[in-house]
């Protein structure tokens, strides 16, 4: 039994060694197919991540809850800050932020310009995947600054002449009294953003001399945003609605809802993308398999004599079948490994990552293991299937006819 197995391995190895050219051709075809299928799946993962992150920047991560409260007469309810703090402590929510949308007038060298300003709490940066080109996002220490910290977009930075952050550049926010703010970070502007914009801490923003009251009247009351686990999001919506409504009374209009990208999807939001990618990958693999079968059948014609000779020396039909199958499987598994390695190199190359992500991805997913396993399984199955036909042909060879072929 052991000698049978070892003998088969030796035979397969000899075949691979002797028929290097054929093996290389088979390897190239299958390796390209496996590389293609694995690369497509891998890049699909990056593209999916880009879509996810883009959605998360706009609407928050899954699950992001949005809380808004106003009195029925349109005024801002008093006591919201305390109600908000109580809710966060009660439900042990770490990632939460107030969001205050305002416009502040900033003095530039060529004049005063209204700048879209969003007041947030420090967790907002994580909740919306804000990554900075330079500097740092807000920390709790920034709450105590005398000169408020601002994080500006790259358009803003360009207009200032791209000062070095190590020099602690500042800008003047105009109002009833001018306020000097220190730039602590710069975030990249999206491709469609052409105007300067900035973030400030919500408390600092509402403390500006011209601040909160004007802003609120212009942009409405602050909203409250929470990033919570998806599986408890529905219960939290109900609980927050109940708690805040209860605290503010029946004169208030309280609304809590989930608004992240995943809230609007039934099932897998990327199912169509995955199906498309899968169909393309399957087609590529099918072409690779057909090429392999083709090469195997053509070369089998040249090997009929050899098979006949082996049969005359006692090789059983099963042994010939196994040897031919094994050659195919061994070759395709090797090709599969080569293809997967090539796919990893392609997918993880900085150039390809940048091209696919289009600057939208901060957390590049690791190379998907399932894609690598899929590639290897496909290679093995293709090898077995592609080996089956020539193996069946090989065992049907008439020995003496084959020897005289």
């Amino acid at each position, binding site marked *: 039994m052991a000698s*049978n197995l070892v003998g088969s391995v030796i035979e397969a190895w000899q075949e691979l060694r*002797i028929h290097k050219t054929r093996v290389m051709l088979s390897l190239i075809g299958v390796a390209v197919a496996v590389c293609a299928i694995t690369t497509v799946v891998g890049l699909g993962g990056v593209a999916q991540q880009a879509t996810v992150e883009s959605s998360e920047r706009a609407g928050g991560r899954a699950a992001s809850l949005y809380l808004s409260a106003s009195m029925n007469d349109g005024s801002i309810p008093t006591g919201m800050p305390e109600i908000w703090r109580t809710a966060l402590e009660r439900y042990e929510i770490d990632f939460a932020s107030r969001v205050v949308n305002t416009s502040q007038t900033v003095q530039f060298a060529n004049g005063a310009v209204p700048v879209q300003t969003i007041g947030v709490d420090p967790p907002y940066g994580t909740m919306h995947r804000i990554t900075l080109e330079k500097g740092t996002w807000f920390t709790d220490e920034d709450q105590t600054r005398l000169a408020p910290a601002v994080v500006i977009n790259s358009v803003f930075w360009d207009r200032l002449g791209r000062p070095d952050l190590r020099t602690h550049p500042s800008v003047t926010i105009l109002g009833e009294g001018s306020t000097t703010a220190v730039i602590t970070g710069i975030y990249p502007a999206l491709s469609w953003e052409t105007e300067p914009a900035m973030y400030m801490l919500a408390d600092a923003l509402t403390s500006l001399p011209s601040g909160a009251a004007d802003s609120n009247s212009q942009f409405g009351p602050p909203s409250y945003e929470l990033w919570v686990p998806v599986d408890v999001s529905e219960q939290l919506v109900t609980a927050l609605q109940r708690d805040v409504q209860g605290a503010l009374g029946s004169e208030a209009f309280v609304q809590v809802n989930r608004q992240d990208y995943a809230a609007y999807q039934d099932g897998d939001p990327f199912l169509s993308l995955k199906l498309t990618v899968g169909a393309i990958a399957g087609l590529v693999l099918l072409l690779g398999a057909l090429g392999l079968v083709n090469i195997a059948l053509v070369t089998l014609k040249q090997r009929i004599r050899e098979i006949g000779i082996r049969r005359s020396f006692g090789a*059983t039909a099963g042994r010939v079948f196994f040897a031919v199958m094994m050659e195919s499987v061994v070759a395709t598994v090797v090709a599969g490994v080569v293809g997967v390695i090539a796919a990893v190199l392609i997918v993880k190359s900085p150039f390809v990552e940048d091209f696919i992500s289009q600057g939208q991805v901060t957390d590049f997913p690791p190379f998907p293991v399932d894609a690598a396993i899929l590639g290897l399984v496909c290679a093995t199955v293709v090898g077995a299937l592609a080996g089956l036909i020539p193996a069946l042909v090989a065992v049907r060879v008439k020995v003496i006819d084959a020897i005289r072929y």
Partner: protein
Amino acid sequence: MTLLHLNGVTRTVQLVDAPPLTILSGVDLDVNVGDRVSIVGRSGSGKTTLLNLLGLLDNPTSGTMLFDDRPVQSLSSGARDRLRGREVGFIFQQFNLLQGRTALENVITPLLYADGRQFWQRARIATEMLERVGLGDRLGALPDRLSGGEQQRVAIARSLVRGPRLILADEPTGALDLETGESVMDLIDEVATQSGAALVTITHDPAIAARATRHLRLDHGVLQRSSPVSG
């Protein structure tokens, strides 16, 4: 001791639009251990079919065929293959060496289908066999680097490396010049004698046939005794 016994063996093939074609008819043959049998016949007389039967590559349509007193028709395909590998050595007209493999690898090939000592010590056994046929210094040579006589000697070493009790030689000198053919036949005779194997030679060449102790002629599928004709 009778190694191979054929009694009333026929072989017919079914044709699509014609009556069955009888290739061998009523063949009676006993091959004993150490026998030297030559079979001559014209092209189309059924020599190849008889070689298939004797080499356990094919089954008779009717009649009895015993190998070592065992009816070969009742053996499974795998058992017949294993019996052939163990007991039968083929020597072909065109040598049929495996291209791309060295002389040593060619002689090792039959041992890959053996088990036990023959399998695990295959390199040593094959080397000894090549030394025995005078090619101890050409172990690593590829077939296309060997002369015709050397190739046939490798083929002889390969056919005998498992110690078969029946050697089937199909036109063993057909691709060699007269002098080389003579020396190859001397070698086959010598090795067969040393191992005690029976040698059945199928040939067109009367001189080669004359070396046998029993002479048979196959004519239109019928096997009959023949008198030796010296070349």
